[in-house]
């Protein structure tokens, strides 16, 4: 019946699963389903260690996915994160390398370690600021802007490393962060970073005004502005956060490998986008969740590692990824349309 419903209780009794929950559950079940299927076909797949590896091996992409997800929900792309990973890693190495070696690639700025890290982070955030400037101020489509800044970031990294890598003359403490074991377990700091980041992101998304504003801005920017939301400021924050996350990821990776490599993080921006799309985030904005993105990452990880386990040549990975994304998006569109019929 379509008579207005009067009481509180009636309204809440009538609450249906939201589309958001529905899609997230769908994605989660696909992830688990795929894992079970892979367990049947791939030897030794169904092991606790393997399950953990699916997550921990992908800490970098999942972390980047957080920033990318928020931006997608707000209706904007961020393709610059892979480039920023390379840039901040290379910067942290270059800043920390001691001065005065005869080899140009061994000679850095000799800054104290912590200053080097902060400098690298600042470099990353500067790229985020550039993104925000062009998207918000000059109103250039974000996909174009961030494609450009991705190349700018990687280009700077390339110049600093002369197209190769820097890995000598580093202070002893340089390698610590990336391989630090936390709480006396085998858990590495980067994984802990990802975990905390996910928790914080979910909290912000579900519980904080900031998260809600992201949905409003993405769902209808005109209505958001006319409702008193400062879209420009919000999107600027999102780009800065996303760049900062990418900066930290770059620093941690360069510490883990004890090198600054201009090709590090290559195509990571696409993987981050792919897991977000797999996770049910709408490219048009206003819809999606960090948890969905997380399960999207699991789907991708299961597909690629199962392929490796089945000794499919890595050459097939692109096609597999493409297929997974394509199927996922078709399935989600279909599911939502069916549900809303």
């Amino acid at each position, binding site marked *: 019946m*379509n008579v207005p419903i009067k009481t509180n209780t009636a309204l*809440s009794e009538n609450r*249906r699963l939201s589309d958001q929950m529905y899609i997230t559950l769908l994605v989660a079940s696909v992830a688990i389903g795929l894992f079970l299927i892979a367990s049947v076909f791939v030897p030794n797949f169904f092991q606790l260690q393997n399950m953990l590896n699916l997550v921990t091996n992908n800490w970098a992409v999942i972390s980047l996915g957080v920033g990318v997800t928020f931006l997608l929900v707000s209706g904007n792309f961020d393709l610059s994160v892979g480039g920023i990973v390379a840039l901040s890693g290379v910067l942290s190495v270059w800043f920390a390398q001691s001065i005065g070696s005869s080899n140009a690639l061994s000679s850095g700025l000799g800054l104290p370690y912590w200053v080097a890290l902060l400098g690298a982070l600042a470099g990353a955030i500067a790229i985020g600021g550039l993104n925000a400037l062009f998207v918000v101020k000059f109103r250039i489509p974000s996909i174009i802007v961030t494609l450009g800044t991705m190349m700018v970031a990687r280009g700077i990294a390339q110049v600093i490393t002369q197209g190769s890598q820097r890995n000598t003359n580093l202070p002893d403490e340089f390698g610590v962060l990336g391989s630090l074991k936390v709480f006396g377990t085998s858990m590495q700091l980067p994984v802990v970073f990802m975990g905390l980041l996910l928790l914080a992101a979910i909290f912000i998304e579900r519980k*904080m005004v900031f998260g809600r504003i992201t949905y409003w801005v993405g*769902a209808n920017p005109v209505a958001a502005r*006319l409702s*008193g939301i400062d879209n420009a400021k919000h999107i600027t924050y999102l780009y800065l956060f996303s760049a900062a996350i990418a900066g930290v990821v770059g620093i941690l990776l360069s510490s883990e490998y004890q090198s600054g490599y201009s090709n590090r993080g290559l195509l990571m921006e696409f993987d981050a986008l792919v897991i977000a799309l797999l996770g049910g985030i709408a490219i048009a904005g206003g819809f999606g969740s960090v948890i969905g993105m997380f399960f999207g990452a699991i789907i991708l990880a299961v597909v690629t590692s199962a392929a490796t386990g089945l000794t499919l040549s890595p050459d097939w990975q692109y096609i597999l990824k493409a297929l997974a994304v394509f199927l996922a998006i078709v399935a989600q569109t279909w599911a939502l349309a069916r549900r809303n019929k």
Partner: protein
Amino acid sequence: MTTQQQPPVLSIEGIIKDYPGVRAVNDVSFSVESSTVHCLIGENGAGKSTLIKMITGALLPSQGNMKINGAPYAPTSTQNARENGVATLFQELHVVDELSVLENLTLGMEQSRFGFLIKSDLEERVIQTLASIEPSINPAARVSSLSVAQKQIIEIARAASSGASVIIMDEPTASLSEREVERLFTVIRKLRSQGVTVIYISHKLDEIIALGDTVTVLRDGKHIVTKPLSEVSGRPELIDMMIGRCVFESYTPRNNLSEEVILSAKGLSNNMLKNVSFEIKKGEIVGFYGLVGAGKTEIARALFGADEVAGSIVFKGEKVGGSPKEAIAAGIALVPEERRTQGLFTNLTIRENIPVMNLRRMSNNGIFRADAELSAATHYIDQLRIATSSIEKHTEKLSGGNQQKVVLAKCLFSKASLLLLDEPTRGVDVGAKTEIYDIIRNLADEGNSVAVFSSELEEVLGICDRIFLLYTGSLESEIINGPDVDINDILNIVTGGNRGVTA
């Protein structure tokens, strides 16, 4: 007479449409006679739009049959319906901003042979129809440069010139001013005399009485009655059939108005406005009335800081007009002209739509207060009688009038002391209208000020204490509302009548 033997042009037999949790249309049967204007009325959410979407193939009925001229009719798409001679004007605008007026008018009607467009008299016909409704629209203009009302007119012209034998119009006049409505009526009458049948949906009952031959009433998805309008005694009977009770609306002068000026605007000018100055007092309801294009929306947006404007706007002693954010912080809220594109987050739920204009009340050190949100949403669903099966319903799935109520709820929740309401009751049924008017009066009695920007004279005269009359961007005159306002004088002024011969 031969017409007696003719089967009805359209007959609807036991149509049902179910949505999850809602039976939007419940076993409706009636027939529509040829060459008549058949009106469809009912409260918001009664199922009018849903019913006509099934007639035009945009939705499939869950059950039931339809016949056209006695032959079974089960359209699968709007294209398919048009091939059967049924054209529609939907409640939501469907014009393509990037195309020209002419291209929009012929969109989907182009004749093609072997994939090439062929020239026909189509262009000629649509240009003529457009000119007879609104001569001021240039067929070569880009649609994006037109106002909402003008876009609406394009849609009307498109349907009217499609050569269909049945044309369905869902609230075509919701954003038109009296003059355009008159012109539209002339076109509709002309179509009728040419043998076209028009199914006409509107909440403006005077239009129904002026235009209709037959009326069908829906209530809660059910068919209440179909009868000739000649047998209807008048407005009260229509209202009674629609909502089962009677409502009145007439202005009662409000006394003890304060003299304290809360907002003063001086010399507002931009590409639309010409040196507009006025004051709004505390606790007052002021109206801005004028034809489409007179500058009502522009004034509202300027006061709210949504558009740039020269001149000064002072609210409670402080300059405003910089940005909507600033306006809201100062205590000004706006219900924008177009609910779907400017007011609502259509892919979010009712609950998620309401709190946006008052984040201070919704949060506690940045933490969102879900409980406050829930109770606010429940409160407004109740107060504004938003017809919905759930607080979690996406606003795109609400009926037009109920969407409008959600936008209003958003704005009321802002607790602003000056409300700018641009066409606040567009698409809202008579019963709900009076309730909204009561809410506006109560707000004003509590000391808030309300500015109503409306192209419905009845609305302005019904609630406003003072009315500003606008003509092509300038403020022509100010009248105090009361029993002896001269309506002819008002109509004369808003059509440029007091401009002398130069106008």
